[in-house]
């Protein structure tokens, strides 16, 4: 199998996903409205309620809006990862997933391409969100906008792989809403997206531990540091390992001799 074949297939998958996203105007707008509502309303309301100490990567006192911006970037990527997996379940029910799985490329590569496509879409959303936030005076340096890109790729891949893994276990579209409630909300609220770890520790040691070991927290921290041109090694390794584990499990889930086909009843 020639390398060029892999390249063309990956490009085709990424292009299709991005094209679908930009032409579906409602999806584009709703993907942006969610974090913006949090930024402009929720964060503004909580600004006075929460006092934040100076913690890295910040070198001075910051507004709450500034603190939660990386968390909202994580939220965009988390929702996008789940939405991609929702579309996988939809594609599988509607049959278009079959066209992908029947093409002569290894399944792991097809899933990885699908994941990259979802990540590309999420990064598109993140930069539009950051541009709007900049108008609201929540800004990073231009180098920060660049240095955050690798972090966005890794966290997008990790959250997408989690979505992919879930999609391999979900038999029908109807079951998806439940998973959203059981995965998205606990992951988001039990993380450092909205409040720093030390704040959580003041309330509950258990919550602190859960938030610390939540891969979403580490993805948010990786993004937070990268946005200020800093590298958080622990968050990077943690996010990378989480990606690797989720992706391996998703590939097993989509393997015809091991995963979802067996649970569908075939033997």
């Amino acid at each position, binding site marked *: *199998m020639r390398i060029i074949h892999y390249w063309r297939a990956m490009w*085709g998958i990424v292009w299709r996903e991005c094209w*679908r996203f930009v032409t579906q105007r409602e999806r584009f707008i709703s993907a942006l409205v969610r974090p913006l509502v949090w930024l402009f309303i929720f964060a503004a309301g909580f600004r006075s309620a929460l006092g934040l100490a100076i913690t890295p990567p910040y070198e001075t006192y910051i507004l709450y809006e500034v603190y939660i911006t990386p968390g909202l970037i994580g939220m965009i990527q988390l929702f996008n990862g789940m939405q991609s997996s929702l579309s996988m379940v939809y594609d599988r029910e*509607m049959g278009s997933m079959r066209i992908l799985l*029947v093409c*002569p490329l290894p399944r792991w590569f097809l899933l990885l391409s699908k994941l990259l496509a979802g990540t590309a879409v999420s990064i598109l959303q993140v930069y539009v969100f950051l541009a709007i936030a900049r108008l609201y005076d929540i800004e990073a340096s231009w180098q920060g906008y660049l240095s955050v890109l690798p972090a966005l790729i890794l966290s997008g891949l990790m959250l997408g792989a989690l979505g992919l893994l879930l999609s391999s276990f979900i038999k029908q579209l109807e079951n998806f809403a439940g998973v959203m409630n059981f995965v998205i909300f606990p992951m988001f609220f039990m993380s450092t997206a909205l409040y720093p770890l030390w704040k959580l520790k003041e309330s509950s040691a258990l919550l602190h531990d859960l938030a610390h070991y939540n891969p979403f927290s580490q993805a948010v921290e990786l993004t937070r540091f990268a946005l200020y041109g800093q590298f958080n090694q622990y968050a990077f390794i943690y996010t990378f390992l989480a990606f690797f584990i989720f992706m391996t499990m998703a590939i097993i889930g989509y393997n015809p001799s091991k995963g979802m086909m067996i649970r569908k009843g*075939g*033997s």
Partner: protein
Amino acid sequence: MKSNALTINDLSFSYGGKKALDQVSFSVETGSCTLLLGPNGAGKSTLFSLITRLYDTRDGRIELCGYEIKQDTRKALAKLGVVFQQTTLDLDLTVLQNLRYHTALHGLSRKVATQRIQQELERLDMYERRFEKIRQLNGGHRRRVEIARALLHQPSLLLLDEPTVGLDVPSRQSIVDYVHRLASEENIAVLWASHLIDEIYPEDRLIVLHKGKIKAKGAIDEVLTFTETATIKDAFFTLTQGEQA
């Protein structure tokens, strides 16, 4: 002597405890059209899922153009064109975008893809409509696009899973004619799952599947002799013990 594009030996498959296919064996020659007849629930879709490797083959062997599907999956799949029962086109993309996506998955260069897309769409009188979204097309035209797509990478075996379901008579007839021409003129092997007896041509080969077992297979006169009946309809009725096709 013609070679086999598809050879299936002793293939069995179960959903839990329920056997969907039981010791199924047959072959499809290049340049021939083989109709797989069976009532609903006969195991046709399961068989197609196994040939396309969506399900794993555990008991039995499937060989596609000399490649064993489990060992040489990718080489085997490269020889295969499929039209699934459900439409698998992206409704929000144009005809051209859908076909380009398929050529990308099969690694065709842009130049080759452009040539093949034009060639296949022209043969099916769909070239003028290449910039229309799939959503704007009727069922018959969507099916034509799916057949064109299945042929873009020049497969040796074309699988069609009840492609004419829900279509009006003229659309059905044109698809049936076209696929038969592909077999006779392009030397493509066709395996066509159907439950519509009027889609059979005199030169076709038949496989009658019922409750996961092959009840009869061969040329039409062989099946009629075997069942001691005068028409395909009677033969089918006898083999499936009165169940409707």
